[in-house]
């Protein structure tokens, strides 16, 4: 049993040649992708999962984690690079880099793509059950100025950054806001809204499908899965704006199996492999040519193909300490 083996080896983790330790979200890595990699490279892949970016960060910061691959979001990548916690693997020089879509090359968190490759990307907005919420829904007013029948059946994500960003979009104030006045307005808005919110729960798919929530903040992939089970669930791209995010593959500093890690990074940039990720996790990938391999129903889905008139998603970096302090203050007061 793997656990027994690790137990014997914990004093000095002498990890065998031909291994790859991936640390990622649960159920995010397609098993057939792993099998394909293992067959092609003769490497044994082990997957471990974390519950949040912060846990991953805390673990890497404390050192000695022994992982070869991590899958951080854009803002987290920014922190990791700033704190010198990832290996410079020069992704731009890898053979499969040519497949990376142009808009994902010069990204704010890794402008030269020296440290990370795209894994999947998506947006955070909201979804409604059109059976209950009638009329044209294209604005965040559905969340913040709800109709009578919606009150008490709203769900917000349990993510202080996501919730506050959404409020900031609605109010038209900047993200990563350092103005106490602006943030006071945000707090007032959220406190008013709280009376109509049933829960701050990231299990938005479950809530929408079961009918507990008729309007819910959600991620696009989740909305797609909800729609699979309840066809009246529609993902909305609000005209006021919404957040985009990208999860990236990177290699933590001191990874034991550096070459295998680089092989994996290159591997996931191939179109047919990126498509496997999309087919499994239901989020877009950043690789050209993968469309050919994506399931047709998925390819046409509105959740990963925004309408032409929808605004572009805004990718939000980690905020300054002042802004973070304000966010923390607003959230603490809101939750009190």
């Amino acid at each position: 049993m793997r656990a027994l083996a690790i137990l014997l080896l914990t004093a000095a983790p002498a990890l065998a040649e031909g291994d790859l330790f991936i640390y990622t979200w649960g159920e995010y890595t397609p098993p057939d992708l792993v099998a394909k990699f293992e067959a092609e490279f003769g490497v044994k892949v082990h997957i471990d999962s974390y519950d949040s970016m912060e846990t991953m960060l805390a673990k890497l910061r404390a050192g000695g984690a022994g992982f070869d691959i991590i899958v951080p979001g854009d803002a987290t990548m920014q922190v990791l690079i700033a704190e010198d916690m990832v290996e410079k693997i020069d992704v731009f020089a890898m053979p499969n880099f040519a497949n990376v879509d142009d808009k994902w090359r010069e990204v704010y968190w890794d402008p030269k793509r020296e440290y990370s490759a795209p894994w999947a990307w998506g947006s955070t907005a909201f979804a409604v059950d059109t059976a209950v919420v009638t009329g044209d829904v294209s604005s965040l007013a559905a969340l913040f100025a709800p109709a009578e029948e919606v009150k008490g059946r709203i769900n917000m994500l349990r993510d202080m950054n996501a919730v506050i960003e959404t409020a900031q979009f609605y109010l038209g104030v900047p993200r990563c806001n350092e103005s106490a006045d602006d943030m006071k307005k945000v707090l007032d808005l959220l406190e008013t809204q709280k009376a109509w919110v049933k829960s701050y729960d990231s299990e938005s798919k479950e809530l929408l499908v079961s009918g507990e929530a008729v309007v819910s903040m959600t991620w696009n992939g989740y909305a797609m899965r909800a729609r699979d089970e309840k066809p009246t669930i529609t993902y909305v791209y609000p005209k006021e704006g919404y957040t985009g995010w990208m999860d990236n593959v990177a290699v933590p500093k001191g990874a034991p199996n550096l070459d295998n890690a680089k092989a994996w990074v290159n591997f996931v940039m191939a179109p047919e492999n990126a498509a496997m990720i999309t087919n499994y996790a239901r989020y877009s990938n950043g690789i050209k040519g993968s469309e050919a391999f994506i399931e047709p129903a998925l390819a046409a889905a509105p959740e990963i193909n925004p309408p032409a008139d929808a605004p572009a998603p805004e990718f939000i970096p980690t905020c300054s300490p002042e802004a973070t302090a304000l966010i923390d203050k607003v959230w603490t007061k809101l939750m009190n």
Partner: protein
Amino acid sequence: MALLDTRSKDIRNLPGFGLTATLAVAFLYAPILFLVLYSFNSGRSISRLDGLSWQWYQAVFANEEIAGAALNSVLLAVIAASVATVMATAAALAMVRMKVRRKAAAYAVLNFPLMVPEIVTAIASLIFFSSVGLGLGFGSLVIAHTTFCIPFAYLPITARLTSMDPALESAAADLFARPWRRFTLITLPLLAPGLMSGWLLAFIVSLDDFIISSMLSGPGSTTLPVHIYSMLRLGITPEVNAVSSLMVLVSALVVITSGLIARKQT
């Protein structure tokens, strides 16, 4: 007069106690039954029953990630509970039966893990293990779990030991020259219910732990709750129900077996 009391007036049968006990158990089981029911769901939902099917159990046996995590959790709990029980028994014997200087201080240390919030233990342990060079992984998990399990084993054992009549053991001292025989033949069997309580409590606590395991697990040693929590972002499926039901089944078997063995001995 006492001899003539009918059974219904026996203090063992206080009115309403049986009902309370039954309701308490029913309350504890409601979520479990719910879980088991939905593990057979033919649809993907964990709250809407579409039909019945074995598909999720098949998925569990095929899913290496979940199965590995569950196995890690159980193994960890067994080791931690057992080691903690042995340590706690020794400590209880010392505290209850022997003269210990600064008993209050020892008592405070023994119960120290109880008063530390899990999140604090988690972070503190993470920093500690990494800086000392022990690294993260199954070994660190065992150490951390054993540590916080000790008071959970200690309390029931002490409660039991305090109430045991020392006269029995002094009588045994007359019969058996060596303290070790006295211990194994008299003390230990009498202590058994306390030991069982202690082990079970420690086992439960270890199995349940999420935050500490999340912080200290390294490659290959993810535990079940950590894996489930990270699945939350992508959606929980009845697979989780299936794993949980299997764990209930396995544990029920373990407990029944140990109960049968215990009965054979008496």
